[in-house]
């Protein structure tokens, strides 16, 4: 008897449960793949979203579609766009969120917070900034590239991340960096070159506001500073003068350049310590293993002197690059290195406010110390 009641209860609860979950069958959905967010030109204060969606229609072979909608919030704008399609737009598969330059300068926190709180939205979605407006990049890109431009852009950025060339920043890490005191986020910038979207620079943020951009090479330096880099392709430029006497085939060379370009595969890690907490002196040790792939001028590298000289010059070059980058960032007063974070953890009371660090950051001194080891310079892999 008791069993029968139990079974009935189970059956009834199953039937009632069906009310809880709303079924979303794949073919009825317009699945957002990429979203561009801009400030609306017509209505002040509103945002305009450009949505790149997948829709599965038996009668239409083309599954990518571009829609746009305006509204006060992201969801409002999505509903506006939904009026233009029969498919229900859902954000569960957004892989890339692109922000226009203007909106990024005003701050993107509120949009990110909305994404982070949506359990359907992926935490690992990539974020990027458009050089002009997001709409421009997506519209023109879609008409230029053969494939879905969202997928294309995601691929472009993701390849760089996988190569360790740039610091990987997805929604989760961006939110984390923002929440950290004394650590400013960076994001890749997409610009249009002959109407073709291209990864061109890195955007530096002050909190959630886009302030200035740095080059992709600087982006790599930031990555090397924060992560262990396993094999990043890098091009270095060092003065040619010290190597003149070791050059091979000097007689036939017509190269008149004053600089030597070296293409290397770089592997390394860094460690930062505070040497003086009161005056904010830092010391960063960077260990690099370098595999040389290509020279602009052939060198007699078997000679031990050349190897030593190369190590010295490369180290000098990288140290100099770091110094320049730090100076620039101090001018902008944004700290994507995260020195503030290190300072806070070394400070006695462990307390630091964002404002306090903005005042102190331009004054800090960092001693970059690069150690280079040359790995094989024979056959390249």
């Amino acid at each position, binding site marked *: 008897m008791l069993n029968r009641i139990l079974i009935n209860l189970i059956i009834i609860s199953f039937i009632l449960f069906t009310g809880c979950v709303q079924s979303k069958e794949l073919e009825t959905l317009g699945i957002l793949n990429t979203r561009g967010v801009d400030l609306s030109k017509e209505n002040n204060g509103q945002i305009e979203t450009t949505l790149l969606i997948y829709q*599965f229609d038996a009668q239409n072979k083309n599954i990518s579609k571009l829609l746009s909608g305006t509204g006060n919030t992201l969801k409002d704008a999505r509903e506006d766009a939904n009026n233009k399609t029969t498919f229900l737009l859902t954000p569960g598969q957004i892989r890339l969120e692109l922000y226009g330059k203007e909106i990024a300068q005003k701050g993107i926190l509120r949009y990110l917070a909305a994404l982070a709180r949506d359990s359907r939205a992926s935490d690992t979605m990539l974020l990027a900034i458009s050089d002009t407006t997001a709409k421009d990049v997506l519209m023109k890109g879609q008409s230029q590239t053969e494939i879905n431009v969202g997928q294309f852009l995601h691929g472009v950025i993701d390849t760089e991340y996988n190569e360790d060339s740039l610091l990987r920043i997805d929604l989760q890490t961006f939110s984390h960096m923002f929440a950290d005191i004394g650590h400013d986020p960076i994001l890749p910038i997409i610009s249009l070159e002959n109407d073709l979207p291209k990864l061109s620079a890195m955007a530096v943020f002050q909190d959630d506001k886009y302030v200035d951009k740095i080059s992709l090479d600087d982006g790599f330096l930031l990555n090397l500073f924060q992560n262990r880099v396993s094999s990043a392709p890098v091009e270095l430029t060092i003065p040619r003068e010290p190597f003149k006497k070791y050059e091979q085939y000097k007689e036939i060379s017509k190269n008149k350049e004053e600089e030597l370009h070296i293409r290397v595969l770089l592997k390394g890690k860094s460690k930062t310590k505070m040497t003086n907490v009161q005056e904010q002196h830092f010391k960063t040790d960077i260990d690099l293993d370098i595999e040389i792939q290509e020279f602009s001028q052939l060198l007699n590298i078997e000679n031990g002197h050349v190897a030593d000289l190369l190590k010295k010059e490369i180290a000098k070059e990288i140290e100099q690059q770091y110094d320049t980058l730090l100076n620039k960032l101090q001018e902008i007063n944004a700290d994507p290195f995260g020195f503030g974070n290190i300072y806070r953890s070394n400070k006695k009371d462990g307390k630091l406010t964002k404002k306090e660090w903005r005042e102190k950051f331009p004054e800090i001194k960092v001693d970059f110390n690069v150690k280079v080891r040359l790995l094989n310079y024979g056959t390249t892999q």
Partner: protein
Amino acid sequence: MRKKRKQQLNSLFPITVEKLEQLMNERFENNPDLSISTYEHQDKKIAVFFIGYLIQSDKVENFLVKPLLESKKEWTNNLILNEIPIGSGQETKLLDDILEGLIIGEVFVYIENEDSAINYLLPKKEKRSLAKAETESVVIGPQVAFTESMVTNLNLIRWGLRSTDLVLEKIMVGKRTPREVRLVYLKSIANETDINTMRQRLQEVEVDAVEDSNVLMQYIEDSSTSIFPQFYSTELPDRAVYSLTNGRIAVLVENSPTAIIAPTTFFNFFESTEDLYMRWNAGSFLRLLRFIAMFISVTLTPMYVAAVTFHYEIIPTQLLISIGQSRAGVPFPPIFEALFLELMIELLREAGARLPTKVGQTIGIVGGVVIGTAAVQAGITSNILIIFITISALASFTAPSYLMGTSIRVLRFPMIILAGILGIIGIMFGICFMLIHLLKLTSLGRPYLSPIYPLRLEDFNKVLFRLPQNYQWKRFTSFRPKDLTRFSKNKAAEKKDIDE
């Protein structure tokens, strides 16, 4: 039963041969097969009666009737018992005993005016010859399978286990048509409690007839309502022998080509004797593969249904596109699509099993290819789902035990329905429900999920994977065999090359 009647009834004999013949015909009303031949020898009437097709008639002819008639002696019962060269002669006095004897293949000789008849057991049993195993076919190792003949099966086991330890207890099961059942175990290894439990269960079965060992199994199982079989039913003598040497019990049933092995854990159903014959690493791999296959078989289609119905977020973008495109024209919700295809696979399997082998194969191929392709072309199903369904069907056939494979296939249907109603939560409900059930199950009183629950790490190397033979010096301890070790531990560590 026989003894009781003996006390109640008086002897039938002496009686005249005519009277006996009349009496027999009366009692055997509807039996045209009873043959009674009367001979006259030295002025004495001798009656020989039997059922023709149950006995070895050439033996009766050559060793019984011929000597009786050709000899010049004056036959008496004692003389017959001494002179006739058939070993099994006995004296019978009661009519009921005669009737029962006739049915099991006895031949009766009655000399007029003697006070008992003599019976010889000369049964003829029709049986097929030994053949390869069909449902549990193996690639390497012994191929021979049990047959329907108890004598043959006992012979196979005896030759596999030439040990005086081997016990073959005889128990009769069934009220109306009693059938011989043998309880087989190794006395020095098998657990005493297990033997007693099994013996008691067999003795307590009260049924009309036991059709087959698989039927008997259902009578003596711990939980008869469960979807999972709790005893292994095998047709391989070497598997039975291997189980016996590990301290388990086998039950043979007359006229059944499968032996029941008990106790059994859930994991035993995914072991094949082949795992032992292969190198240990290949054997381990195959065993792991079967576990993965089982999991895939139960969850793959439900996962598809859940993901496509509720959780499109979890599908990688590239896969999402191909699934989306193939789903685009399908008019049914995923749950019906999946149920429809699963049913179709089951139809093909069932039809293939019923039809003769040659036709069955053709139907399988034609049905699979034609229906599969046509269904996709017609837009009734998506081709991705066809792939999933086929994989899970294939996976379910990897279980060496056909009974377990069938259970798994049946389990898929409630899982698909749960997934279609509740999504991944539903699948989790289903898996939890199944797990709780498995935890509660026992086989001959031993936990079904051991050695995982209760946890016995030392048994893992016999269940989830297999160590090299040299390292398996312990028996499966979860079954508590009397003798725990197969050989001494030091023997395993010993180096084989002594010289050098």
